[in-house]
């Protein structure tokens, strides 16, 4: 009787650390970002302001840049114009750029899109599903995706330094 009780106690003492590890790791797993560098980029299909619908998974083998923008964000316009320069420079090397609208009403988004002279497609995400999948918490936010469809860099700002870093990473990705 005493032996059985002792054995149960030992089993419980062994199980306890394992349970604690599981409980501690649960919040970390739940809060894990979907859009961290090294993870596969979440696929999406969206309507464009002008032109055909776009599905991300159709661009495996190309370097893709996704820039999240909102109509009330001045830095977004500057970011999109900077990306437009990169797009016209590296389009021939397999670069694709998409601007995805976030947290806007459709009329404001369309007005912003018409006033932003870019040659790459601007996409509408009325359900905000893509913004959620990429954990957009700041505007502008730029995601660089490599030719294998994996996220390589997430830039949550737009300034001279971030622009230079982004361009350097882009060149590296295109050279791979």
């Amino acid at each position: 009787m005493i032996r059985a009780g002792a054995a149960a106690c030992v089993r419980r003492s062994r199980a306890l650390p394992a349970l604690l590890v599981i409980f501690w790791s649960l919040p970390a797993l739940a809060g894990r970002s979907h859009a961290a560098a090294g993870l596969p980029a979440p696929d999406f299909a969206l309507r464009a302001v002008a032109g055909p619908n776009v599905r991300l998974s159709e661009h495996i083998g190309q370097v893709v840049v996704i820039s999240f923008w909102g109509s009330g964000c001045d830095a977004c316009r500057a970011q999109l114009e900077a990306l437009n320069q990169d797009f016209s420079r590296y389009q021939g090397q397999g670069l694709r750029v998409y601007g995805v609208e976030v947290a806007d009403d459709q009329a404001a988004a369309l007005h912003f899109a018409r006033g932003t002279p870019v040659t790459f497609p601007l996409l509408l995400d009325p359900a905000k599903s893509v913004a959620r999948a990429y954990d957009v918490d700041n505007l502008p936010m730029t995601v660089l995706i490599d030719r294998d469809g994996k996220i390589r860099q997430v830039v949550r700002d737009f300034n001279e330094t971030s622009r230079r870093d982004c361009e350097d990473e882009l060149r590296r990705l295109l050279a791979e």
Partner: protein
Amino acid sequence: MLEVPLPLARRPAGRCLTVKVAMLAALAALAAVPVAFAQTPAPAAAAAAPAMQSAGGDGVDAQVQSLKSDVLDLNRDLFVLEQELLYPANTQVAVFVSIDAGTFFALDSVQLKIDGKEVANYLYTPREVNALVQGGVQRLFVGNLKVGKHELTAFLTGKGPHDRDYTRGATLEFRKDIGAKYLELTITDDQSKLQPQFRIKDWE
């Protein structure tokens, strides 16, 4: 490229999922062993490595390729098992989409509702539409339904004749019996009316 899955063939009973997972893990571990050794060569062995690589390199490569092939086979079997577990044949219902001709309609999106509840909403790219026009069939939805009467409604949007925005619906009341139910949403050209035609019918 569009996924064009075929109706699943029944697998022999008694194949255990856990055994497959264990085999997959073991194969993955085996495949990782040569890589792990290759990354950390001992100093003494490092000098002799080039000569040995040329002699035995081909054999190891062949083994690795064979293991990769086995892993892919197991992965496929696991996928089939997963599908069978998630959508048992008794309750399974699947909806396929096909386009015949498509001169009068450029497909943009399809929304599916079963018994008034949205079950699928798909946005098509030109590449996907092209694949359908060329004869591809897309499995748009697979799910489970109880035996009895049900209603399937499909709302289609796109560009109709004269490049006008076009939205149409098609409805089918069907009875789900014991056994899998396959339905097909077809988009055809009605040459007499010069209009597209949408129909839902039993998969043949």
